[in-house]
């Protein structure tokens, strides 16, 4: 690999400079660089294991392409300033922000952008101290641990508590800002939180907003995406839905989605865990010899026992999905007191 020393201070498109030899026939094959970095398999895994999140996947591919091109440039002796890769993930709970952040660390490591590729996940408490002089060492310790990898700050807006003047969050923010700007090639910072609160946070801290190159929004999952996620989760644990169970689960989700505190993929996971619990109960009560298929299958009754079907919903008279649930499970008392 040859390194061309650049001594000129003029602009990047200085074609007259003999050192910037654009007429040379040096070239590099994209497939070579791809193979070398093995980034394709990481991207493919991302596609397979994460459902939906189309805009996120597109952005990740773009970042991967940029970093590959940087590699190619470096191999031909062209210098490239490392791009700023700090990101902000906004979205409701359970939409995959932490999961994608972890994948991001691996992807960036495969592209040799971060040195170690480990993820340090913190919240406000890990950065802000309780008394004067406590914050700076605390934040610096966390930053030192995260160097060479990715720092993931969850619920980042809690760092800045406007109503309390004795809050030391501002100090932590300032240390973060400095490191995000001056040590870009040592650390990648990913902030995460709800969209509206992050908006307020960025408005009150324009410094942070300007240092973040990629603002990514994680939308709520659609019903069909949640179903696929449920089936992926079950398959991972070597379970599967019976055909009736799948239908009932769809009805369950339709109801659950409108109930309060719905956390997308996390609620799905909790529901599946409860279904497994009921399946276990059912099988033990059944007794006798139980086949492997029985052990693997979640039946409709395991889901129907959920209180989502029996709990009174305030405005259920206006909801048509009660009728649908009734028609699926056949119990005329579902949805009524």
């Amino acid at each position, binding site marked *: 690999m040859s390194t061309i020393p650049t001594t000129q201070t003029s602009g990047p498109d200085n074609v007259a400079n003999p050192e910037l030899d654009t007429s040379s026939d040096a070239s590099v094959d994209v497939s070579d660089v791809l193979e070398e970095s093995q980034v394709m398999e990481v991207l493919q895994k991302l596609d397979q294991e994460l459902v939906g999140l189309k805009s996120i996947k597109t952005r990740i591919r773009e970042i991967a392409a940029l970093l590959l091109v940087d590699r190619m440039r470096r191999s031909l002796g062209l210098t490239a300033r490392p791009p700023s890769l700090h990101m902000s993930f906004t979205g409701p709970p359970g939409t995959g922000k932490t999961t994608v952040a972890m994948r991001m660390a691996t992807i960036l490591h495969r592209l040799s952008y971060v040195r*170690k590729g*480990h993820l340090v996940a913190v919240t406000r408490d890990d950065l802000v101290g309780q008394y004067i002089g406590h914050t700076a060492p605390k934040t610096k310790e966390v930053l*030192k*641990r995260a*160097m*060479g*990898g990715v720092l993931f700050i969850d619920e980042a807006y809690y760092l800045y508590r406007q109503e309390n003047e004795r809050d030391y969050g501002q100090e932590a923010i300032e240390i973060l800002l400095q490191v995000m700007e001056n040590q870009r090639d*040592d*650390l990648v910072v990913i902030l995460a939180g709800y969209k509206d609160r992050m908006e307020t946070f960025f408005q009150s801290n324009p410094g942070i907003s300007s240092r973040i190159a990629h603002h990514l929004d994680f939308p709520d999952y659609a019903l069909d995406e949640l179903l696929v996620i449920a089936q992926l989760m079950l398959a991972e644990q070597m379970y599967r839905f019976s055909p009736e169970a799948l239908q009932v689960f769809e009805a369950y989700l339709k109801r659950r989605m409108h109930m309060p505190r719905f956390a997308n993929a996390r609620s799905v996971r909790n529901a599946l865990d409860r279904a497994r619990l009921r399946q276990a109960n059912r099988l033990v009560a059944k007794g006798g010899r139980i086949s492997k298929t029985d052990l693997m299958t979640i039946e409709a009754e395991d889901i129907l026992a959920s209180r989502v079907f029996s709990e009174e919903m305030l405005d259920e008279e206006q909801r048509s999905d009660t009728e649908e649930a009734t028609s699926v499970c056949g119990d005329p008392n579902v949805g009524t007191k």
Partner: protein
Amino acid sequence: MAFHLTQGTFSFLPPLTDDEIRKQVQYCLDNDWPINVEFTDDPHPRNSYWEMWGLPMFDVKDPAAIMYEINECRRAYPNHYIRVGAYDRSKGRQTIALSFIVNRPPHDPGFGLLRQEAHDRVIRYTVHSYATDKPKGERFTD
């Protein structure tokens, strides 16, 4: 010739540059040896307990953070000897695997030989650092 303290690894070489220190630190981290930064202004060869600059960095896996700590120590004590130690915890070893000086005071007056007359005509010898003639904190200040 100015006095050059030859304690620790690499001490017979010219002082290491920051890049070289970084590479050594990376080597230690690759071998899973946590790194520690210590400083002192008493350069006597039998002074093995230098003062610690913070706790050993057990959970730091990247040289950037360690270089930051070394530079912070240099900023706080520019006229002290600062060394970096790496501890090997593998069974059968459990000792400092690598220890080298990363910062030296600009001028070290060196050592003198002290003679103590004991019984009969026996003389006991020891080395004495001229720097320690001054009280702690005021050494190497030129």
